[in-house]
């Protein structure tokens, strides 16, 4: 009795103080991005290389998607590696550097000053990514329990670093030629290292852990996850190689097929997890997250169209490229962030507020800390806004684009409403 008990698994988690600033920042960035979108709908009917389009894209990619992923990752890394986060200080530093760098970068793009604002912004961002990589890498080494999920996050972060370094090179290339061709020629390389290497690899790596966990699913298939990991990385490496060393456009079909296969496998994995779930009811945030998995198919279809177009015509179809970018950032990434925010943030806030009160009285459920009706309206305005704006992009109708941007702005306001409500929540106990 009272002897020989294994107590190896302590439950130390990352402090909420580290994580919450990322969520707050991302919510504001989403609002800023939708305001900029509303003010710039006319610019989206021209060429994709436009200062306002670049500003919106980087607000969405960095301020919105990346900041919330970094925040959530600091919370989830202990779950993925089954060990504590190495350093809270590095996490704070990562936040401060990114929080300072992103507005500089966005401002620089908006006014198209590719000098000190954008270059300083990019350098700060690189610093933030390096801090995150050191923190993640050291946590993984100390935990000694590496797995496909943690490896995906680490590899995705390396791709993010590579994307940011290429981005800085492209910025410097504007003022003094460092690269064999103009910066515009390398945009596709920069964008796909970020979209596929960072976002896709990270979402598949973390999603394959979280989706079965939240669905309480029995399904697990590590071999499929390794295939997804290999297909994404080899596909992207092949793309980088072909981009830099060949002129043959039809060869791009191979990396595209590899990445498309990875997406199909990930979709299949999520479907099996959904089929084998123990909890039958799927809540609204999970529904939105599962919608994002379906939305992954749209950019792939558009990318196939773009590659086919490139093979048949010497010029890039600017509208297809803008639609592709919009669907990636306002479609797939936004849907997963909208859903996962309300699967993670309420628990972080609940832990912060009710940790010391647990078991001492009746506490509200984490899902009761935000307003469900506001969430439902947010979901509706988001789906409507996304569909209307995408239609506007294909039809090139200013009125439809304006309507879509207003709906997305409403989405951002409602999202912020619930996030701020969560962040200022005070304890209520019966």
């Amino acid at each position, binding site marked *: 009795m*009272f002897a020989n008990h*294994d107590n190896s*698994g302590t439950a130390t988690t990352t402090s909420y103080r580290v994580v919450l600033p990322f969520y707050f920042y991302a919510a504001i960035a989403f609002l800023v991005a939708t305001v900029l979108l509303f003010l710039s709908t006319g610019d989206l009917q021209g060429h994709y290389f436009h200062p306002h389009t670049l500003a919106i894209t980087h607000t969405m990619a960095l301020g919105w998607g990346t900041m919330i992923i970094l925040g959530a990752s600091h919370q989830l890394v202990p*779950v993925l590696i089954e060990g504590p986060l190495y350093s809270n200080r590095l996490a704070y530093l990562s936040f401060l550097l990114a929080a300072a760098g992103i507005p500089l970068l966005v401002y620089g793009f908006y006014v198209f000053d590719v000098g000190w604002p954008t270059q300083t912004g990019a350098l700060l961002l690189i610093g933030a990514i390096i801090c995150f990589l050191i923190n993640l890498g050291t946590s993984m080494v100390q935990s000694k329990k590496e797995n496909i999920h943690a490896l995906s996050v680490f590899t995705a972060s390396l791709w993010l670093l590579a994307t940011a370094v290429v981005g800085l090179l492209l910025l410097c290339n504007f003022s003094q030629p460092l690269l064999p061709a103009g910066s515009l020629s390398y945009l596709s390389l920069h964008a796909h290292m970020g979209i596929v290497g960072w976002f896709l690899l990270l979402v598949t790596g973390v999603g394959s852990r979280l989706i079965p966990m939240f669905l*309480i699913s029995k399904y697990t298939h590590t071999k499929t996850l390794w295939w997804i990991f290999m297909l994404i990385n080899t596909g992207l490496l092949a793309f980088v190689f072909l981009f830099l060393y060949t002129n043959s456009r039809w060869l791009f079909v191979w990396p595209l097929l590899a990445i498309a296969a990875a997406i199909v496998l990930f979709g299949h994995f999520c479907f099996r997890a959904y089929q084998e779930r123990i909890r039958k009811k799927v809540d609204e945030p999970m529904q939105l997250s599962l919608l994002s998995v379906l939305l992954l198919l749209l950019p792939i279809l558009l990318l196939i169209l773009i590659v086919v177009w490139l093979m048949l015509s010497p010029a890039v179809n600017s509208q297809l490229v803008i639609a592709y970018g919009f669907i990636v950032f306002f479609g797939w990434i936004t849907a997963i962030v909208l859903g996962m925010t309300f699967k993670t943030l309420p628990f972080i806030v609940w832990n912060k507020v009710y940790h010391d009160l647990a078991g001492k009285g009746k506490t509200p459920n984490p899902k009761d800390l935000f307003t469900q009706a506001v969430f439902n309206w947010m979901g509706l305005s988001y789906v409507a806004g996304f569909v209307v704006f995408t239609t506007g992009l294909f039809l090139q109708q200013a009125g439809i684009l304006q309507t879509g941007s207003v709906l997305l702005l409403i989405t951002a306001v409602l999202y912020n409403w619930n996030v701020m409500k969560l962040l200022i929540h005070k304890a209520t106990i019966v």
Partner: protein
Amino acid sequence: MNVITNNTLKSTVALAALQDVVDPEIGLNVVDLGLIYQLDFDEHAGKLYCSMTLTTQFCPMGDSITSAVKERLKLAFPGYEITCELTFDPPWSHAMISPEGKEFLNEK
């Protein structure tokens, strides 16, 4: 899953008290979820030892769940010294959910 105990009667009281501790994400209590592995009582020394697990190691809600278990056991056994330890050997699996728990999850 059957809970290991050296005192079936007292363990029944403890498990009844722990029905009030609910995993906030799943909405199911820790007993039906199969998180409680062992409840040992030392009546002479006034000690209660609880061994439990979490659905995921380093679960962000883990601290709150174990605190709540401790608080509920304190209420059920006043004056007892409560020791609550986490173990992940064996790790939690879906098979540990009680039939009542599975029924609850099917309906929810």
